[in-house]
């Protein structure tokens, strides 16, 4: 075993807030995690936990009135002389040339809804060719060849013909493949997939997950997979980050998260998912209450109002921090740390 290589992306204490007229929404509030080359990192959580905003923050495409207000996003890349350099994406101008190069060039993004992510008035090919030419400065003909090659790579049949079709002419599965092809057009090392299979049927979902796995094996892709589906996480990820209301509550290797979860939220979430292995017609254990509205965020640990292990006087007063509980597993909970 070689020593652990440094992560290619380190997010530290990331804070992304939204400032609508009504107040401040702390969508991501101090999230930290590392991404290692050729691995799949899963970010899981329910709606409003900040998983998508985290992805948008990394790419610096948070829409107004949102803004990255703190923390760092360190991207490690090879520079011209072979020396690795670190670049803090949080410090870059979101509209600047460097960030534009990183988007697509270093980090590709796959959205949840392929229908709305493609332009309805341009062919798939034109949209890919445009990005390839923008990033690589090649001729239209070369860019087209490259686009056909990528469409073939993602398993689209007859790519020479399909390249001239519009997104609405493709089925849901093919459209998501085209979306992945689009994200890959400029040869990124990191692929961020935000709920890439949520809009798809199960058999199509299986095809897309297979494709992502092949891309990782063959192309050495590093993947951040954002999803609410714990089944998808269990099947795909090496490392898992569990988020709740903008904070990382637990993270660790996939086996530890599923077989030795430490945080009460992770434990409750895993118990409450309907399982295909369950006994027919049984009640599911539930998590009490619902996710608080972002304006009414509880003080202290954000999960305490729903937590079965709530300790009055501790959890509602102080905020726990992410601490190691061994074997690469970190938990943010007072059950495992002094108040």
């Amino acid at each position, binding site marked *: 075993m070689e020593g652990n290589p440094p992560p290619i992306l380190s997010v530290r204490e990331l804070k992304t807030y939204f400032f609508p007229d009504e107040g401040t929404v702390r969508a991501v509030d101090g999230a930290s995690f590392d991404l290692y080359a050729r691995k799949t990192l899963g970010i899981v959580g*329910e*709606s409003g936990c900040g998983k998508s905003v985290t992805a948008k923050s990394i790419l610096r495409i948070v829409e107004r009135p949102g803004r990255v207000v703190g923390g760092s996003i360190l991207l490690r890349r090879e520079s011209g002389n072979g020396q690795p350099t670190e670049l803090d994406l949080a410090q870059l101008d979101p509209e600047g040339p460097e960030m534009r190069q990183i988007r697509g060039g270093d980090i590709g993004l796959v959205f949840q809804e392929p229908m709305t992510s493609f332009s309805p008035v341009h062919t798939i090919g034109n949209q890919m060719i445009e990005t390839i030419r923008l990033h690589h400065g090649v001729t239209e003909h070369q860019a087209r060849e490259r686009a056909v090659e990528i469409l073939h790579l993602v398993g689209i049949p007859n790519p020479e013909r399909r390249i001239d079709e519009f997104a609405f002419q493709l*089925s*849901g*599965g*093919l459209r998501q493949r085209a979306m992945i092809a689009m994200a890959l057009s400029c040869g990124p090392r990191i692929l961020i997939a935000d709920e890439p299979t949520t809009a798809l*049927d*199960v*058999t*199509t*979902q*299986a*095809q897309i*997950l*297979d494709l992502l796995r092949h891309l990782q094996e063959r192309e050495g892709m590093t993947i951040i997979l954002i999803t*609410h*589906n*714990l*089944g*998808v*996480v*269990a*099947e795909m*990820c090496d490392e898992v980050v569990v988020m709740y209301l903008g904070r990382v509550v637990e993270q660790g290797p*996939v*086996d530890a998260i*599923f*077989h030795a979860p430490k945080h009460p939220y992770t434990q*409750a*979430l*895993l118990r*409450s*998912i*309907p*399982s*295909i*292995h*369950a*006994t*027919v*017609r*049984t*009640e*599911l*254990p*539930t*998590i009490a209450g*619902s*996710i608080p*509205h972002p304006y009414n965020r509880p003080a202290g640990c954000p999960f305490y109002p729903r937590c079965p292990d709530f300790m009055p006087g501790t959890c509602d007063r102080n905020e726990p921090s992410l601490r190691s509980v061994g074997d690469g597993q970190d938990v943010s909970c007072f059950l495992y740390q002094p108040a």
Partner: protein
Amino acid sequence: MRLLEVKGLQKFFPIRKGFLKREVGQVRAVDDVSFHVERGETLSLVGESGCGKTTTARCILRALTPTAGQILFRGSTGPVVDVTRLSKAQLRPLRRQMQMIFQDPFSSLNPRRTLFDIVAEPLVANKIGTRQEQVERVAELLRMVGLRPEYIRRYPHAFSGGQRQRIGIARALALNPSLIVADEPVSALDVSVQAQILNLMLALQKQLGLTYLFVAHDLSVVKHVSDRVAVMYVGRIVEMADTQRLFATPKHPYTEALLSAVPKPDPRLRAQRIVLEGDVADAANPPSGCYFHPRCRYAQDVCRTETPRLEEIAPGHFVSCHRARELTLRGVSG
């Protein structure tokens, strides 16, 4: 006793083209579907998008008029009626007995109306009770679905997705229906809220003796609520059996593939999934023989030419596959 019996149901949608909108073809959305639902049980229709599960449900409620077939409904009072043959006026009393729970709790509640208006609407429309009685009934319904009656004057925007789905359930229960058609009732909800709504539906069924026709694509959810399951593919039922049996010993290759494609929430079970090639067949232009044969790994010559019929291969277990009796397929344990 059978509450509902569907026989040879067909629903075709015309494909029109050109200036004169001439009919150039048909989408056979539901093509010869037959099943029954016993009083007090839950039957789930499962399948992928475009398989006809929602169209079937909408035909039963007569939100759509079927092309052919019979839908026999035995109400709490009166004789068995064929829903497909009733006029609008005749349907009215029947509609009290069949209600629907919708998928999207955000678009299925009118944002400009209060909780009282929404839940009392079926009572008002059917002129049931005085205003005071309606208020009392709504309060009772809200308590039944786990909402506080004090919320009666609030608007839907003040509620979370799970609470809104409870409101939708309360509205569906207002007229004491015997049949509830639930079309993907939890697929728009967060995981932790899904469980609450599924438990509520199970509890209400026990308490009120409801019969559910549950339309869903998520097999894990289906396993939690159903007594029996019918799997649909391109407008037809390909397999139907009681839940335990269907999950443990599927007899149709499509059911096997569906079960295997569900991501299991356990990294130690990273299975060799059966990944089906290609897409779901086009209902406007289906393949010859068995509609599933182009994607089936067990397909033989007969599958390409002859359409299989839905046959009962064991008591209560129906399969539409030429090779159902010889194949041993992989199910899921538990």
